[in-house]
């Protein structure tokens, strides 16, 4: 797409012959097509120029901003005036409506006119009005909402008054300066120009936008000269160039040109997005760049999704058959009329005078189209939508799909595919967060090739789990309030603590129950379980050595280095935001920093002799006086806890300060002693310190103490892994205390608080599968890159260093072994690596990186490239240093850069299964749904999880497909297919249930999957996977996930369902027939793109097995009933044609005729479609096999359609001819003859429904009675008062007289009984045969079924039996 646009753009440029005119030239309005190419010629896309609206650039401003939208929004589709024409226009896009419009018009042609002109309009009008009313209500609601939003007040800078004045949102313009306070909502997309935070940082909560609840950091435009001081809009003279509005939330590119010509690059980190909330920052000022509908929030605002369900597609063929039927009937009538006319010598009955029979027949054809129009069910589409609304209402209200912890119900986003839930054949599931909790808990780690099993930790987790089950706290999750609405209203109240609200409500039960804390304090992704990591004794001892040299066991200095680096990396290599629940972060208590004299400071730095103070260039220090300050006071130890940390409150502080008071002298003295020794250690971590008090303490005490001190911290992480690792690091007293844009504050054991200068964060991305931070090491002053990523990436890129090969290959080998072991345990593994950069290399890289950062176009690509460069090439030839784990071939051109990379270690993080996952998967498999697991995880992890969730059982045969090449892959597939076929034929030979148990499971990795998805191997892959019970795809990319789903969906023609929770599942969710998002820990992208959003995996079973089954059977049966009803009723009219010379007469008043289907018999099918339960919910849950019946569309197969039509024919025959014979030859009038026919048709249609219904509640009864009374009320009214109201045939007195005759009742009873007899007998015997029937009450039935399935050895065999007996 992008590329295409680029090409187009280039073509235009060529045509215009104006290739030199860059878009950097001044003041180009947006309208031009030619104004968009960068000097480099690569950058395309339109851009906008924004001038500040502070009164000083009035001319420029007006010239440029004329075409920019204001901030007023209008989400309404119609205005008051355009409603009727536009709504009608939209409605007539539907074929059915057009058809009926055609009929209405046809009725105006005199020769074919069948009814009065008004009457044929009724159905159409009714449908149009219903939908118009609905549309109008919706639009009105939107209008009210818009009005409310538009009239919100915000403070905007006014150029004439030179101050901020209150203005409504709708009056905000592009270029306005907006002043916002904490907890205010951002009215438009704006660039952050000023933040009260000294680092120019501001935090926003994007819950309204994407539902993610962790705070995001935004930064004042870099190098903004006014930073730190009070911002004055008058003095702002810069011009902003940025790209034109688009809907990419994470992308923003542009630059700001100051009046002196200096350009500053802008990126999405500078952009405050509309409808996010300012958090933890006292005041911010920004300049609006996009307003109103051009904001990213609004451009992302797409309504609910529309999908066409399979059933609806099927329905169309049935409707087509109805049309064919109609055509046949009309043709019969036309020919019949022609023949009939032909048989008369003279003009007959003094009406038709001169029309030739053929022409008359032609006319009659069209007349009959009008007369029999009811056959095409216009109201069916409306009814289906009403029914689906009802079904959704019930799904939405299901108590068992409600999650108490999250206080969330199921969210139905796609409203018209409920019945697809009942036909799922393939289920594609993500693993992390879907099958598992996605609540990561640090479990164990391996550093320097030494494994630390953390057995205590494991025990704790077990205890935790058992505690959980005992107390029936099924799950503890964060309140990730995705309902933006409730959030936003809460966030309006400014007086509450600035911490994200979810942290207040998170897991109160757990907290109360376990720790008795009254005030729960957690951050995003930190369950209590994740927070409490019990340190491994061995590792603890080694760490302790740092603080206590007297320890007997002395690890090698290198190992120590590794360990410290490892924990440092854990603590800082992330994007975790630290907040304190008690105090807004924007109040940073710098004033309280205990300042010491400069001399003291210098002295201290001299002690760190390994890292000369002078080595730090002024520019590096310049940006963060704060970090310098903290650097100065790193020796202040715990006293520094109060230094520039958010923790400055309550008892903990006082306790720590008490501690401080107790031993300042002691520690100061010891420091001096210690520091001399430190110089010997040549690696980066030499600063150790002894504290006799601490040394005496046991590990437990230590941990406890640390926790006490740091408990105040709340980590808000983007992913649960990060949170888990940060907490793990904290358990070893390596605590992340605070973060600003340019520095990190970390407590290190034995060192105390360190401010680390943060140079860059190269964020995680799924292509690189890793993230890095570039920091200046606080102790060595070197530029260090910490990389954390998937083991495959890090290990693959690792290369044996040249020098100390043995040692490091040994470490690597051991680590790899540990990695495999972790994976087998089902742990998620992450590797941590480090490397050190030389200054010149860093400078080189930095230059390129800056270039990438400031480029408007392709910024992402360039940044990615830049990141890869940093992460790979620098370590590529790490020859001089032994401790390298280096990277592969990728970018040889950077060979001249030599650096070392230290492989620090690997972590294992446990991710527990969600509750009832094995049961759910078992149920789904019993229901005949093939469950596939598509995960990005390692193969071992995936298999392990698959075992854990009973997707695999011990007897299953595992087919593993890991191929190195495509040819090998092809050969392997052939082999595997043979093997599977062999297994199957074996099964066939033995022929009994036992062999069914050993089924095949295919495990395929991402690379092989890539080949399998190619054209040549595709069919083999399909063949193979079709025969397997389950397929596990590991190491798969998001794209592969969606390709797999698409392949299965398109080539096997089955219904697919994809379920996932993260952004990487979005494509899969969108491709599948039904996409289900799990609103869990990883933001809301999956939910936003899903059709249904649930909060736990276990909800799937109820959703599919019960609601899916019901919705499908209800809808399928309702559609059939609808067709039956129409065919039956229309045939009555058709039979009459044989007795009126095919002249298109009807024996009913036309009002009754039209309203019969539209009103009198319309409500019961709706109720049926919403409320019917063909089987009770518990039966469906306990016998998932029942689900299979809908899967193969048994209820709605073509022959059922024809059976229904035949039954309708029979019933209409009875319904017509019984009255016919009863009244034949008598003096009955046209309408009098129609009266018993209509009445019995009503009874037949209603009772047919009763027979078809499986459950009848009082609602059914009420509706049935209402239907009857409305019909009889209507006809009686008509017959009582309609003297000349319905020309030409007035029904006056007809029903009154008819109903006073006993013959009427005699006929009606006979007709009804005779018509329904076959259906009644059939349904009865049908049920009997299926043994759900009359013999037992249903409860006894399925009890007996359950007994059966237990007595049989395998579920597979039970399938067969139950399919035979229950599903017939």
């Amino acid at each position, binding site marked *: 797409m992008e590329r295409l646009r680029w090409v187009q753009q280039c073509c235009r440029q060529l045509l215009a012959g104006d290739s030199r005119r860059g878009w950097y030239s001044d003041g180009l309005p947006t309208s031009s097509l030619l104004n968009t190419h960068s000097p480099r010629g690569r950058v395309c896309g339109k851009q906008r120029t924004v001038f500040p609206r502070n009164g000083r650039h009035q001319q420029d401003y007006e010239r440029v901003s004329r075409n920019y939208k204001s901030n007023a929004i209008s989400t309404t589709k119609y205005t008051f005036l355009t409603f009727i024409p536009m709504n009608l226009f939209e409605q007539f896009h539907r074929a059915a409506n057009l058809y009926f419009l055609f009929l209405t018009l046809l009725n105006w042609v005199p020769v074919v006119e069948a009814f009065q002109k008004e009457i044929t309009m009724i159905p159409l009008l009714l449908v149009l009005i219903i939908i118009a009313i609905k549309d109008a209500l919706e639009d009105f609601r939107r209008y009210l909402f818009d009005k409310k939003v538009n009239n919100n007040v915000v403070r905007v800078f006014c150029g004439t008054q030179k101050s901020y004045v209150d203005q409504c949102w709708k009056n905000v313009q592009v270029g306005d300066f907006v002043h916002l306070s904490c907890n205010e909502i951002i009215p438009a997309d704006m660039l952050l120009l000023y933040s009260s935070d000294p680092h120019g940082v501001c935090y926003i909560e994007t819950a309204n936008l994407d539902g993610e609840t962790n705070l995001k950091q935004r930064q004042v435009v870099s190098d903004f000269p006014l930073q730190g001081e009070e911002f004055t809009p008058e003095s702002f003279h810069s011009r902003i160039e940025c790209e034109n509005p688009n809907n990419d939330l994470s992308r923003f590119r542009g630059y700001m040109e100051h009046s002196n010509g200096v350009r500053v690059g802008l990126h999405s980190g500078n952009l405050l997005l509309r409808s996010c909330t300012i958090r933890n920052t006292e005041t911010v000022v920004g300049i609006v760049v996009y307003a109103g509908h051009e904001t990213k929030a609004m451009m992302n605002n797409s309504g609910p999704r529309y999908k066409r369900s399979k059933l609806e597609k099927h329905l169309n063929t049935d409707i087509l058959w109805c049309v064919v039927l109609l055509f046949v009937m009309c043709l019969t009538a036309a020919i019949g009329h022609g023949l009939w006319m032909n048989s008369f010598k003279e003009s007959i009955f003094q009406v038709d005078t001169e029309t030739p029979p053929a022409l008359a027949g032609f006319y009659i054809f069209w007349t009959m189209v009008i007369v029999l129009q009811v056959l095409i069910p216009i109201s069916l589409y409306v009814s289906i939508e009403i029914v689906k609304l009802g079904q959704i209402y019930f799904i939405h209200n299901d108590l068992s799909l409600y999650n108490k912890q999250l206080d969330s119900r199921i969210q*139905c986003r796609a409203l018209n595919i409920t019945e697809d839930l009942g036909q799922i054949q393939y289920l594609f599931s993500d693993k992390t967060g879907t099958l598992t909790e996605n609540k990561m808990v640090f479990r164990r780690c391996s550093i320097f090739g030494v494994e630390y099993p953390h057995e205590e930790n494991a025990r704790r987790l077990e205890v935790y789990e058992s505690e959980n089950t005992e107390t029936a706290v099924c799950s503890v999750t964060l309140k990730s309030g995705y309902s933006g609405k409730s959030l936003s209203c809460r966030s309006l109240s400014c007086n509450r603590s600035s911490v994200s609200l979810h942290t207040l409500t998170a897991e109160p039960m757990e907290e109360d129950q376990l720790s008795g804390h009254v005030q729960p304090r957690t951050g995003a992704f930190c369950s209590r379980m994740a927070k409490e990591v019990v340190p491994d004794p061995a590792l603890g001892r080694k760490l302790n050595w740092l603080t206590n040299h007297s320890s007997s066991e002395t690890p090698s200095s290198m190992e120590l280095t590794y360990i410290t680096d490892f924990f440092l990396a854990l603590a800082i290599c992330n994007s975790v935001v630290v907040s304190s629940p008690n105090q807004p972060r924007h109040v940073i208590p710098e004033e309280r920093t205990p300042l010491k004299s400069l001399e003291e400071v210098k002295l201290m730095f001299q002690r760190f002799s390994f890292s000369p103070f002078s080595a730090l260039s002024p520019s590096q220090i310049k940006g963060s006086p704060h970090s310098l300050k903290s650097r100065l006071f790193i020796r202040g130890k715990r006293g520094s806890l109060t230094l520039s940390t958010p923790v400055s409150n309550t008892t903990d502080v006082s306790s720590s300060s008490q501690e401080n008071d107790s031993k300042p002298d002691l520690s100061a003295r010891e420091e001096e002693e210690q520091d001399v020794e430190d110089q010997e250690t040549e690696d980066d971590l030499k600063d150790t310190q002894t504290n006799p008090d601490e040394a005496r303490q046991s590990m437990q005490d230590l941990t406890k103490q640390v926790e006490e001190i740091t408990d105040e911290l709340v980590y808000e992480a983007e992913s649960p892994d990060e949170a888990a690792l940060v907490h793990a690091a904290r358990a070893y007293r390596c605590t992340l205390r605070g973060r600003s844009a340019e520095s990190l504050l970390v407590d290190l054991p034995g060192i105390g608080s360190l401010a680390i200068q943060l140079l860059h964060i190269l964020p995680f991305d799924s292509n690189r599968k890793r993230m890095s931070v570039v920091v200046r090491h606080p102790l060595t002053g070197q530029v260090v890159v910490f990389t954390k990523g998937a083991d495959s990436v890090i290990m693959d890129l690792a290369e044996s260093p040249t020098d100390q090969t043995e040692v490091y290959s040994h470490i690597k080998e051991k680590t790899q072994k540990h990695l495999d072991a972790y994976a087998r345990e089902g742990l998620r593994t992450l590797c941590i690596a480090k490397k050190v950069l030389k200054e010149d290399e860093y400078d080189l890289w930095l230059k390129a990186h800056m270039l990438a950062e400031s480029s408007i176009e392709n910024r992402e690509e360039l940044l990615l490239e830049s990141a890869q460069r940093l992460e790979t090439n620098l370590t590529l030839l790490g020859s001089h240093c032994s401790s390298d784990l280096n990277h592969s071939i990728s970018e040889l051109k950077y060979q001249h850069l030599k650096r070392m990379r230290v492989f620090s270690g690997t972590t294992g993080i446990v991710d527990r299964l969600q509750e009832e996952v094995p049961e759910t998967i078992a149920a789904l498999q019993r229901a005949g749904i093939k469950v596939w697991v598509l995960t990005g995880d390692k193969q071992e992890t995936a298999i392990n999880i698959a075992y854990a969730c009973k997707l695999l059982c011990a007897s299953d045969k595992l087919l593993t497909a890991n191929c190195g090449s495509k040819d090998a892959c092809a050969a392997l597939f052939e082999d595997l297919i043979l093997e599977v076929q062999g297994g199957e034929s074996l099964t066939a030979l033995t022929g009994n249930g036992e062999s069914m148990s050993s089924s095949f499971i295919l495990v395929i990795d991402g690379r092989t999957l890539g080949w399998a998805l190619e054209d040549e191997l595709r069919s083999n892959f399909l063949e193979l996977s079709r025969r397997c019970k389950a397929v596990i795809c590991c190491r798969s990319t998001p794209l592969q996930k969606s390709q797999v789903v698409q392949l299965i969906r398109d080539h096997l023609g089955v219904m697919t369902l994809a379920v996932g929770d993260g952004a990487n599942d979005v494509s899969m969710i969108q491709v599948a027939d039904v996409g289900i998002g799990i609103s869990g820990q990883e933001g809301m992208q999956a939910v936003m793109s899903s059709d249904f959003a649930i909060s736990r995996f276990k909800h799937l079973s109820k959703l599919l097995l019960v609601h899916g089954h019901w919705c499908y059977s209800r809808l399928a049966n309702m559609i059939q009933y609808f067709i039956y009803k129409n065919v039956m009723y229309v045939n009555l009219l058709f039979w009459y044609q044989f007795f009126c010379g095919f002249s298109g007469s009807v024996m009913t008043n036309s009002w009754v005729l039209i309203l019969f289907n539209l009103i009198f018999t319309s409500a019961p099918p709706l109720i049926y479609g919403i409320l019917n339960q063909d089987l009770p919910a518990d039966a469906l849950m306990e016998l998932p096999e029942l689900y299979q019946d809908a899967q193969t569309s048994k209820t709605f197969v073509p022959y059922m359609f024809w059976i229904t039509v035949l039954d309708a024919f029979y019933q209409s025959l009875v319904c017509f001819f019984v009255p016919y014979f009863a009244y034949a030859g008598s003096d009955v009038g046209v309408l009098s003859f129609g009266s018993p026919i209509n009445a019995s048709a009503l009874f037949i249609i209603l009772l047919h429904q009763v027979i078809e219904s499986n459950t009848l509640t009082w609602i059914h009864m009420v509706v049935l009675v209402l239907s009857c009374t409305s019909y009889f009320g209507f006809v009686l009214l008509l017959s009582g008062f309609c003297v000349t109201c319905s020309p030409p045939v007035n029904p*006056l007195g007809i029903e009154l007289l008819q109903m006073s005759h006993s013959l009427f009742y005699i006929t009606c009873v006979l007709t009804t009984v005779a018509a329904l007899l076959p259906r009644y007998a059939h349904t009865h015997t049908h049920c009997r045969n299926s043994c759900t029937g009359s013999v037992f009450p249903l409860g006894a039935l399925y009890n007996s079924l359950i007994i059966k399935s237990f007595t049989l050895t395998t579920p597979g065999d039970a399938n067969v039996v139950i399919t035979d007996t229950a599903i017939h």
Partner: protein
Amino acid sequence: MMASSYNAKEEDGHHSGASSGTGLSKNKKPDNTAFKQQRLPAWQPILTAGSVLPAFFVIGLIFIPIGIGLYVTSNNIKEFEIDYTGVSSDSPCYNCAKNFTWNTTEPCVCTVNFTLLQPFESNVFMYYGLSNFYQNHRRYVKSRDDRQLNGDLSALTDPSKECEPYRKSGDVSIAPCGAIANSLFNDTLVLYYVDSNNSKIEVPLVKKGIAWWTDKHVKFRNPAGNSNLTLAFRDTAKPVNWAKPVYELDPSDPDNNGFINEDFIVWMRTAALPTFRKLYRIIQKKSGTTPTLPNGNYMLNITYNYPVLSFDGRKRMILSTISWMGGKNPFLGIAYITVGSICFFLGVVLLIIHHKYDNRNTSADIPS
């Protein structure tokens, strides 16, 4: 379309905190009511043997007696029917039928003799019957103006377009307009009883009370404002086929003249089927035990005005008594008996299957 946004308000995405209120306090937990959780007590109509089998038997047991009753009743009804169209050459009306067209001015009279074998007790209804006459033809049925017939003065002079081509004769509008009125049945039937000494005694035929009460008193009204019908209809023309104008339909009785002439009203109620009968006269039961129509010979005197041969029609005269269930009709009785028997039979068959299945089911469970 209908379903476009059930919970769209939660998803609009731009609710920038505009709502104020109760988000926090309100729990999203669904109500645990029987309705919302779909646990309403329900009756399962067909799933229990207890309700199905008895239903068959009950229907059978009720229908058969009713059928017998209907059959007997229908058999007790006496009905006599005679075709006087005059198709065959030996028919007394052969000549009339052959020569008569709508344009004939001279009335043709013919006489049909018949014999009643059984006496007709109680009131006897005299019908004329027409066959192959499609009074239910769509355009024929419409060809009338109810407002005109209801006495609406404006419709009298300006009838509805539906009446075409019998709306106006020249410039003068036709009253009553339309094809139905134009084709009014105008044979006159007079019934004589021929007693044993061959003298003809005219049977008294009552011509009032044959139309529906609502038709006579509500639906059909003479034009208001003038008691003199001749004057009331002075601006109108007679229908083309009529020999005399509407105000001369029954000059003897002002209450049966004009639009409220009962023969006219009966004709205007179009028949549902191409073979139909319409009530012509009523023969009131005489007091005492003497039958209304004793058995014996009768003579039907027909003034043959109505041509039917052009469309292969037939004309009949029917004499019939009626019962509580209407006229003679053996069909209903037979149908009831048949349906009842089928039900009963089905019930028995199902009962047998049920028993067999029951045994099989219980025995099958144990060994497997």
